[in-house]
C-alpha cells in the first residue's frame, strides 16, 4: 500500500499510526475494535464505522475483515491544538487497497508551536513600588468582598481553636 503521499506532516503521522495498526493486526475483525484502537492512540473520542460503500457480507475467507470501506476519525493532542484526522481504508480481497488521510488543517499551526504566539520571556522582571510609578489604576487579582474576607477569618479561627 502506498500511504506516503497522504502523510505530509510528521505530527500527523503519530496519529495515523494507531489507526493503521488496526488494519494490519489480525484477529480484531470488528469496527468496534477499530474504534477502540484508534481511541487508545488518540485519547479522544474517535468513531469508526463501515462506510456506505462497505460491501455486504463478502468475506475474504481468512476471517479477518470484510471487504469494504472503513472510516475512522481520530484526534490527538499537541501542546497547542487538538489535531483531527479522518482515515479511510478500503479493503479488497482481504488486503488494503487504498488509504486516504484527510483533515490536517491544523497541522501547519502545530508546526509553528506556541513560540509563534509568545513575543518574549523574561526571568528578570522585577516589581516597582506602586507609589513610584505614575498610574491611575492597578490591575491584579480581584479584590474580594467582605463576605469572602469574613469566610477566610472564620476558617482561620476554627483552625486555630
Amino acid at each position, binding site marked *: 500500500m502506498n500511504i506516503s503521499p497522504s502523510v505530509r506532516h510528521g505530527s500527523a503521522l503519530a496519529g495515523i499510526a494507531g489507526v493503521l495498526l488496526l488494519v494490519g493486526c489480525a484477529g480484531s475483525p470488528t469496527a468496534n475494535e477499530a474504534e477502540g484502537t484508534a481511541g487508545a492512540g488518540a485519547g479522544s473520542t474517535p468513531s469508526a464505522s463501515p462506510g456506505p460503500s462497505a460491501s455486504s457480507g463478502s468475506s475474504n475467507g481468512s476471517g479477518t475483515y470484510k471487504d469494504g470501506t472503513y472510516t475512522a476519525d481520530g484526534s490527538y493532542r499537541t501542546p497547542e491544538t487538538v489535531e483531527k484526522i479522518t482515515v479511510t481504508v478500503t479493503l479488497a480481497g482481504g488486503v488494503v487497497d487504498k488509504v486516504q488521510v484527510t483533515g490536517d488543517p491544523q497541522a501547519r499551526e502545530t508546526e509553528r508551536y506556541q513560540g509563534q504566539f509568545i513575543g518574549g520571556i523574561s526571568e528578570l522582571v522585577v516589581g*516597582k513600588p506602586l507609589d513610584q510609578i505614575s498610574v491611575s489604576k492597578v490591575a*491584579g487579582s*480581584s479584590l474580594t468582598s467582605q463576605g469572602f474576607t469574613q469566610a477566610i477569618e472564620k476558617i482561620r479561627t476554627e483552625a486555630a481553636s
Partner: protein
Amino acid sequence: MDAPAPPWRFEAIGTVWEIGSGRPLSAEDRDAVAAIIDGFDRTWSRFRPDSVVSRLAASPGSVPPPGDATPMLDLYAELAEATGGAVNPLVGESLARRGYDAALSLRDRGPVAAPADWRSALAWSPDGLVLSEPATIDVGAIGKGRLVDLVHAALRSRGHTALVVDASGDLAVSGPAVRVGLEHPYDPTLAIGVVELRDRALCASAVNRRAWGDGLHHVLDARTGEPVRTIAATWAIASSAMLADAAATALFFDGGPAFAHAQGVEWVRMTTSGTVEWSPGSPAELFG
C-alpha cells in the same frame, strides 16, 4: 480635560467596583448601573439561591434564554476548544467541592472534574437555555467582563464619554488614556509593569486573593478539579472586557497564547516561578 469627579465606589457581585467619569454620575445613572448588575446577578450568580443558574442546578430543565446566554456561551465554546476542555461553563460543582460554594464554606471536599461532554448537557438558543443533567453553570471565566461591558455601554449611551469602569481586575476605558499598573501577584505593593489603555479593556486574573485552604484558589482546571499550578497571574487587553476576561482565563492553560493570537488579544502573564511572558504585540512596559 476637566478634573475628573471622584469615582463612584461600591461593592457588588463579590468584588469592589469603581466607576469614574469626566462628569458626575447622576442618581439616574447610578440606578441604571445598579439595575444592570442586579439583573446579571439574579441570572448568573451561583452564590444566590434564587438565581437562574442556582434554580437550574437544583432542578435541571429549560428556562427562557437569559439575554447574555448566547454571547457568553458561544465564547465559552471557543474557550473550551482552545484549552482542550480546561475551561468549561459547568465547572460550578467542581468549584463548590473545593469550598468555593454558595455559603463560602471554603471547606475542601476534594477534586471533581466538570462534565467533559458539557456541550451535550447544556444547550442554548433563542428558544431557551436547557440543562439536561444535574450540573452547576459557572460563568466565572468571562461573566465579570461581560458585566463590565454592559455597564460601560449603558453609561456611554447616557453620555459618559470619558469613562473608566473598573470591577477590580476587569476594566474598560473610553476617552482619555489611562495608565494601569500590573500588580505583582506575590506583592500587592509592587507593579511588574504598566500599560496605557485607550478605548480598550483590560482584565487581570491572579490566584493570590481568592485563595484558601491547602493551595486552593478559584482558577481550577475543569478536567481535573485541581487548581492551576504553573501560572500565577495573567493580564489581557482586548476590544471588550468579556474577551479580555476570556483570554485572561485561557492564559492559565496550554492553548491560551494561541487563543489570544486568534482573537487579537495582547497579554502578559507570570508563571509561579516568576518568569514573565508576553504576546508579540504586547503594549505593556515591563520593569526588568
